[in-house]
């Protein structure tokens, strides 16, 4: 028999992805021992908070959370404020500031709006972090959650990246009725890249995230607008099937008469 956590993840892979937050809460209610693992491994749409010292919006996830407060990447302060909240070491915070500046540019270039936040934390043999991006428009929202770690080696670093994109689209009209097309896709990659200084880390992570998002955007396009539409076409066909079968028969006869 599978472990309960595996069954919980299997269940979440099947139920309507739009309700993932409610479903996670319900599973935890039913089996409280799964709480920690589920909150760590299930990505839910990112929530937004305002940094009170810089007045800028930032994104919240489990990685910048301490109790009921979230750390702003712009000020390094927790909202709402707490005493002795966990913050990165001086070196890592410096890199975090650079990374937030870089991904702010990335966000503007690719999303032309939205919100970005990068959080880094210290590890024994390097550091780890996450890059978060969110944009909402009328009829849809995009959340990217890129979690990575970097292990320092001589002149290189080994990066491991797990990326999730949560994409929700919906439309409603008299002719169409209601349509909701929502979900998430996950991809992982590992890569060794050259490192000169801490600036190289920001550039390396930037390249990895940029490549990954390009790949995932193409994949989402294929699944959301190609695969989903194909399945509908497999369920019901607009041209009558007798016509399609006749056409196929005619085609076969033509081919066989030509080869004779």
């Amino acid at each position, binding site marked *: 028999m599978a472990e*309960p956590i595996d*069954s919980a993840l299997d*269940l979440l*892979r*099947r*139920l309507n992805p*739009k*309700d993932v937050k409610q479903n996670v809460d*319900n*599973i935890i*209610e*039913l089996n409280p021992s799964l709480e920690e693992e589920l909150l760590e491994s299930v990505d839910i749409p990112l929530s937004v908070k305002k940094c009170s010292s810089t007045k*800028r*919006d930032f994104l919240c996830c489990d990685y910048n959370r301490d109790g009921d407060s979230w750390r702003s990447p712009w000020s390094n302060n927790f909202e709402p404020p707490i005493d002795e909240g966990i913050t990165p070491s001086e070196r890592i915070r410096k890199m975090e500031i650079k990374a937030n*500046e870089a991904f702010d*540019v990335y966000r*503007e*270039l*690719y*999303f*032309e*709006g939205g*919100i970005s936040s990068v959080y880094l934390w210290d590890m024994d043999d390097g550091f780890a972090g996450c890059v978060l991006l969110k*944009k909402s*428009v*009328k*009829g*849809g*929202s995009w959340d990217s959650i890129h979690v990575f770690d970097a292990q320092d080696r001589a002149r290189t670093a080994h990066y491991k990246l797990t990326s999730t994109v949560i*994409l929700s689209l919906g439309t409603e009209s008299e*002719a*169409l*009725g*209601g*349509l*909701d*097309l929502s*979900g*998430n*896709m*996950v991809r992982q990659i590992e890569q060794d890249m050259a490192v000169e200084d801490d600036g190289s880390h*920001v*550039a*390396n992570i930037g390249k990895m995230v*940029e490549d990954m*998002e390009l790949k995932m*955007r*193409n994949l989402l396009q294929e*699944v*959301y*607008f190609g*695969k*989903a539409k194909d*399945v*509908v076409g*497999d*369920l019901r066909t*607009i041209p009558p*099937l*007798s016509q399609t079968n006749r056409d196929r028969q005619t085609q076969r006869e033509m081919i066989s008469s030509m080869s004779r």
Partner: protein
Amino acid sequence: MSRTQALSSFIESAPPGELHDVTKAIKNILGEDSVQSELEPAFQKHNEEQFSLVKLPGSNENVIVSPYNSLGDGRYYDTENQSSFAYDHASLAATASDVRSHVVESNHEDLVKSLLKTLRSHGTEHYPKYHIGVYPTNDDSQIALVTVASKYSPANYWNGRWRSSYLYTPASSTLTGTIAVDVHYYEDGNVRLLTNKAVTSTINGSSAGDVVKAIAQAERAYQENLNKAFGGLAEGAFKSLRRQLPITRQKIEWEKISGYRLGQDIGGGRR
């Protein structure tokens, strides 16, 4: 939310063809095997709403379970086979039991027969795999017409279902109903398409052919609109959420990223 409510919401949200998987996962999360009887009302709701199929014993024929052919107490009837049967929702089995002869008494008996035939011809022309049902309502004032077409491909991580159901009122020659599509794709992710379209139509004429013609027109128009909607979302909301490449059509030069900000050439304003 109570335990039963939470579990029932899982059952209700089960994708086409995945009710067994969802139930198995629930049992394992709870560490209880006995939950199936607790969930019977949820299974019944799911089966009736999804027009689930059950096999009549001794035959290879699948018949629909829906609110329109329910006789109460877990019994349903089938117009074509002129029989009624029991279905134990909690068992999750695919087979009915206790089949008895059941003749539908209706003033529209002949119309029901021709509707079955005509709706079947329409189904054969447009659904590679489908089941239909035609049932007079309890007070005999309306006739329900149900079509369900499912295709399961779990090996390729997708499943889908098209459902349409209509109520035809002979006295006013009106047709009302719903078309609903449910597609689940779950390879390295979880993507769901859920649609719902209300149909209202006035029938020109009173023959089975006239009714099914109106259904055919509504379903064709809907499928065309749905196909257009995919294109609309791809070109609209999807594109405006994230560009494929920056406006410069070049990937970012990360080594020079600090210069981008100084140049102020990246377009768009700060929030």
